[in-house]
């Protein structure tokens, strides 16, 4: 299907056409799915239709788990909680308040609102800057457990362990229910498909790959995760509502931990991160277990358990792709047919604060317990300055860079960017103030293409679309220069992990420059570069200070490089600044020579 809709490859396609082809695929496949679903009830027996309706609702729920886990890397046990909220909203309203079109709308709205509120709370708890993924998973684990207990504690109102059943509901024919469930699944899947194929979808993958890098690119990771979690919760609640309205029964199992883990099993077996895989996996496994549950309940569960472990350990892509290889190739080819974006110059953003000092560091210090890594750090950086930070290993250079890029890092002191205090802002807010940090080891997004990496870097200034891929990639002049001069412009479609080391470094630098920073922090940019590459980097950095008037702070060990390009040098030793001056001052200094060779000055400070 996708082959016929594939657009001809080539640059210069208008953005409108690109959006249409993606939308086109979805509409065509969706229409076909609806036709199949429309006809199915007439070919299947009542029992199968019954089972399938339930499976369809559960498949929509599995889809949300794939969005969270397969695409964004959030291992969640909690989607069953939202499913249960939707289901119980339906049952509670219909049992205790009333039944009718108005009540149904109210119940649905209540379910969605309650689910989203709980999701927002859980998200706030779980996804904060510096939270470990394990903690996030634990919060999602606690959700269904808490909810199940709440249901248990509800006595007669919630039916407690026995649940509620027989409440008034829509006793439509089985065909109508099938169409409702099927249409719901098709719509949700279609929208999700558009979403993950859009530019915003790439952001999710970037977050899963390398959350730290995202934070330092100004992407508000916690907020995105919470938002995604809330939306997934809402969809889960709708699925639960439909499920309860159809089956006419709710029980604590619907909100529980076991259902939450079953969803993960379905997604894992179906193939995480493929969207269709989990949907198919959920339907297949749920239907099969219904058929087998009469005869061999234990052996079936044992088989599923074994398959699950095998898949996690050995086949992370799941069973579905192994079984349906052609589908996988289709997906890959459709994705590779994605347009190569056209590069363009972005209009620079407004710089209102041109008179202020770019960087003003006052009395910054950093301790780890009683160990003083940095103390009394005081310096300023001017516009267009190429400031090198040198010093022996352990002097605190990288720590200082970290303090400049992350407001939480330092133990005390003040840092101001263009007069605005860094305060305790997390990295993504520091980026907003104008800091761009390039890491020592090339820190890019391995499975994204070069163009996608750059697009991710433009998040803050060029908000990505949630349902399409733009065909134009606008980069600031500086970034564009790097991309063109280092040959990256010819490798826009190559996955970042396939680039050579030097190319990766250049890509990361381009990404940092795409942020349009005022201050660029670089940690050993020449590490691992050939002489040619080193000269090129030097030229690029120099041109950045001259043409864009950026302030560049550079940690380096290669003193020749430092001598060639720096306009100023700061020498750090044992956490303190021992010298701050021009290149000649530092090069000629006895002090520096002694420090590097561990001489007299070093001994004296050991005594004190």
């Amino acid at each position, binding site marked *: 299907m996708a082959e016929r809709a594939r657009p001809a490859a080539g640059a210069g396609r208008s953005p409108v056409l690109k959006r249409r082809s993606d939308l086109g695929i979805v509409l065509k496949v969706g229409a076909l799915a609806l036709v199949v679903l429309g006809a199915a009830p007439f070919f299947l027996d009542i029992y199968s239709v019954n089972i399938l309706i339930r499976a369809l609702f559960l498949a929509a729920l599995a889809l949300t788990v794939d969005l969270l886990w397969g695409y964004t890397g959030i*291992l969640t046990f909690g989607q069953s909680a939202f499913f249960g909220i939707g289901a119980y909203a339906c049952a509670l309203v219909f049992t205790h308040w009333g039944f009718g079109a108005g009540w149904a709308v109210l119940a649905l709205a209540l379910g969605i609102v309650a689910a989203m509120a709980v999701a927002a709370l859980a998200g706030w*708890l779980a996804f904060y800057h*510096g*939270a*470990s*993924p*394990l*903690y996030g*998973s*634990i*919060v999602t*684990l*606690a959700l269904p*457990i*808490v909810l199940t*207990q709440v249901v*248990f*504690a509800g006595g007669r109102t919630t039916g407690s362990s026995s649940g509620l059943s027989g409440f008034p509901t829509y006793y439509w024919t089985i065909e109508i229910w099938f169409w409702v469930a099927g249409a719901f699944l098709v719509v949700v899947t279609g929208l999700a498909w558009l979403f993950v194929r859009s530019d915003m979808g790439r952001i999710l993958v970037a977050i899963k790959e390398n959350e730290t890098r995202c934070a330092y690119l100004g992407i508000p990771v916690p907020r995105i995760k919470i938002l995604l979690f809330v939306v997934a919760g809402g969809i889960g609640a709708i699925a639960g509502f439909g499920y309860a309205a159809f089956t006419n029964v709710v029980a604590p199992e619907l909100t529980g*931990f076991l259902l939450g*883990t079953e969803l*993960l*099993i379905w997604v*894992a077996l179906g193939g995480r991160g493929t969207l269709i895989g989990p949907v198919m996996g959920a339907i297949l496994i749920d239907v099969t277990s219904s058929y087998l549950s009469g005869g061999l309940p*234990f*052996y079936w*569960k*044992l088989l*599923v*358990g*074994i398959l*699950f*472990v095998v898949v*996690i*350990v*050995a086949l*992370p892509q799941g069973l579905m792709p192994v079984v349906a290889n052609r589908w996988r190739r289709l997906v890959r080819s459709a994705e590779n047919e994605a347009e190569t974006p056209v590069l363009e110059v972005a209009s620079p953003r407004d710089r209102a604060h041109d008179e202020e000092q770019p960087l003003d560091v006052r009395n910054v210090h950093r301790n780890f317990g009683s160990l003083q890594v940095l103390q009394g750090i005081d310096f300023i950086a001017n516009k267009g300055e190429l400031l090198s930070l040198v010093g022996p290993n352990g002097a605190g250079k990288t720590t200082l860079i970290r303090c400049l890029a992350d407001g939480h890092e330092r133990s005390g002191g003040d840092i101001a960017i263009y007069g605005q205090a860094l305060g305790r802002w997390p990295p993504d807010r520091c980026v907003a103030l104008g800091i761009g940090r390039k890491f020592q080891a090339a820190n890019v997004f391995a499975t994204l293409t070069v163009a996608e990496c750059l697009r991710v870097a433009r998040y803050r200034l060029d908000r990505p679309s949630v349902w399409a891929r733009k065909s134009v990639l606008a980069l600031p002049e500086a970034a564009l220069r790097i991309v063109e001069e280092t040959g990256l412009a010819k490798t826009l479609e190559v996955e970042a992990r396939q680039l050579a080391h030097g190319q990766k470094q250049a890509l990361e630098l381009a990404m940092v420059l795409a942020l349009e920073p005022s201050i660029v922090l670089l940690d050993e940019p020449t590490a691992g570069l050939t002489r040619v590459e080193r000269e090129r980097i030097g030229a690029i950095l120099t041109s950045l200070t001259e043409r864009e008037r950026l302030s560049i702070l550079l940690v380096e060990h290669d003193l020749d490089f430092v001598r060639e390009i720096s306009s100023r040098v700061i020498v750090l030793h044992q956490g303190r600044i021992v010298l701050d001056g021009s290149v000649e001052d530092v090069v000629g200094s006895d002090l520096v020579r002694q420090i590097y060779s561990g001489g007299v000055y070093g001994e004296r400070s050991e005594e004190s």
Partner: protein
Amino acid sequence: MVGVLVLDIVTTAAILFAVATGLMIILGVMKLINFAHGAFLTIGGYAAYVATSLGWNPWLAIPFAALVGFLLGVIVEHVIVRPLYARPLDAILATWGLGIIIGQLITIGFGRQVQFVESPISGAIDFLGQSYSLYRLVLVVLALAMGAALTALLYFTRFGLNARAVIMNEDLARGLGIDSTKVRLLTFGLGAALASMAGALITPLISVDPNLGLPWLVNSFMLVLVSGVSIPGLMVAALILGGAQVIVSTYFSAILGGLTIVVIAAVILRVRPQGLTSG
């Protein structure tokens, strides 16, 4: 009433401690949450069942359970956990799958019904003016003994030294020539053995059926995350959280009591992600 409350808290804490140590040692050395922990508790319960059915002294069931757990743990580490060294979240899922497998195998092998295990001690005695379950009191002693033995293992043996080095900094330990693969293997076996032993210890108070371990799993690992990797830390965490559970169960509702540990732990971890004791 207060006397009984205090005894309830102390004995509940002792039980939680005994159940959670196995999980803690695995978390410390291997930085991984073993979601098969509940299944190992169940295995311990069934090992005790087998031992008493064979006519052995019920006290022997405990070391027997430990042995069975150790052997199984070593096999599991090799086959399932080792390949997932670099993927801790996946390791949680794989060990959960393992728990399902163990549960189903036990069901197929032993049947789904509840088994009855002879208890080494039964009845109540007068303790500090209260009539209280003797076995629960004995459990406090046994839990303390477990803690002491584990501390001795960690601080007075070569293995313990290696394990502590790996806990602190695995790369550095390997750089110093410690075979961290072997340490991890033995540690997982030890953790499984501790879990099985705890399962055997608690059978006199609960029923032995294939789902024995499940209710303890979530509470155990919440406890371990809150306590950090430290034996005294785990005792303190068990007292605090176990105590909270008992108090809520007694004064509010036993149903909400089941929730207390999970909720309080989640809040504590939000405020202090490294747990009550760091490292």
